């Protein structure tokens, strides 16, 4: 796929190595392109995000505030469901770094679910009311664990993950803390989750 470099790269094409400068367009494999895009070493043309994500798409729930993206990604609004084989569940108004979206879709081809951590230091024991902490401790056994940002969750569509959504929604009942409810649901279902670095969160 074609990317536009923002840094100098030495690229082998057809066995010949050549140096490309910032601003140059170069066609490389999807693997290299995704790595460079994530690192900020390259950009895509505005309309080139689509082919990266295949049948994947974004479901915006909890309102109608859609993310502003440069690339074209299938997007729909509604209640929390999995309309695509790989779905980014995005709470209305939440943000995610756009360059990571195709990588998230790639990751949930392998994992069942992927979500960025909220913070490396903030632990579950610092969130919620005493009652919600007790409720959470009863499920996850120890609150000295990091929180996920439950507003941006990549999910692979499967029966198991449909069940996960049901458990998450059940845990959200009478819960003021979405992220604690998410932790409880994770602990109950125990999916193959890929925890992602906090830099995935748009700040």
């Amino acid at each position, binding site marked *: 796929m074609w990317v536009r470099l923002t840094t100098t790269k030495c690229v082998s094409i057809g066995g010949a190595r050549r140096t490309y400068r910032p601003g140059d367009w170069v066609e490389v494999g999807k*693997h*290299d392109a*995704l*790595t460079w895009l*994530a*690192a900020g070493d390259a950009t895509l043309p505005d309309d080139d995000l689509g082919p990266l994500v295949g049948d994947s798409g974004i479901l915006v729930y909890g309102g109608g505030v859609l993310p502003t993206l440069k690339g074209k990604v299938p997007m729909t609004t509604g209640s929390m469901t999995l309309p695509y084989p790989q779905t980014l569940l995005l709470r209305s108004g939440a943000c995610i770094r756009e360059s*990571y979206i195709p*990588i998230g879709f*790639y*990751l949930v081809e*392998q*994992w069942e679910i992927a979500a960025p*951590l909220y913070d*490396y*230091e903030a*632990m579950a024991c610092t969130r919620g009311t005493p009652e919600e902490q007790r409720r959470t401790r009863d499920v996850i*056994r*120890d609150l*000295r*664990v*990091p929180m996920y940002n439950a507003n941006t969750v990549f999910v692979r569509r499967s029966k198991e993950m449909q069940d996960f959504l049901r458990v998450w929604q059940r845990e959200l009942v009478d819960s003021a803390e979405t992220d604690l409810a998410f932790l409880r649901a994770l*602990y109950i279902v*125990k*999916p*193959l*989750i*890929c*925890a*992602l*670095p*906090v*830099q995935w969160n748009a700040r």
Partner: protein
Amino acid sequence: MRGVVYVAYGREARQEALMSSRTVEEHNPGLPISLIASEPLGKLHFIKYDLPRERNRWAKLNIDTLSPYNVTAYLDADTRVTGRLTAGFEMLEDGWDMAMALSKNQETDWLWHCSEDDRQMTEARLRHKGLQYGAGVMFVAWGERTRALWAAWREEWGAFCGQDQGAFMRALQRVRVRLWVLGGTWNGGSLVTHRYGMARAR
């Protein structure tokens, strides 16, 4: 059966492991403790595994076959335990394959201690700078997935034979396990303190 496993080769590592094991005993009475080493040490249950000191990491990469406990807490020799480890074992018994804390080194410090080749290979394989876990404190339930992960870890480590964290990240991308992420309290924090580097030869 629950138990703690140490790996210690060399005078400093053995001394550290002995001190660490005493802190486990103090706060977790009755919890079995084993030592993987070339020679026995104190009253610790001894698992003989001959290795030259510089290859000691290989023992950690083989605890899937060496640990006598089906739910194992691996602790680096230079850790000190200040409380009960019960919750870590319970998480495994609840169905998680592993529980481990993140490394303090993320983003700009990501895999700083690994070679440039190791870093590059890891980033390329993961397609991003994935989370770096701290492999000095690990709770593991041995089963098909975790044994496959350890086999992949050995293979990945063989690429550079250096530090093991990049290799762990690559192995985890190949063999996915149900991993519950712990907070820093559990490795380098208030529950398990970590005297990083104290087990190395000085």
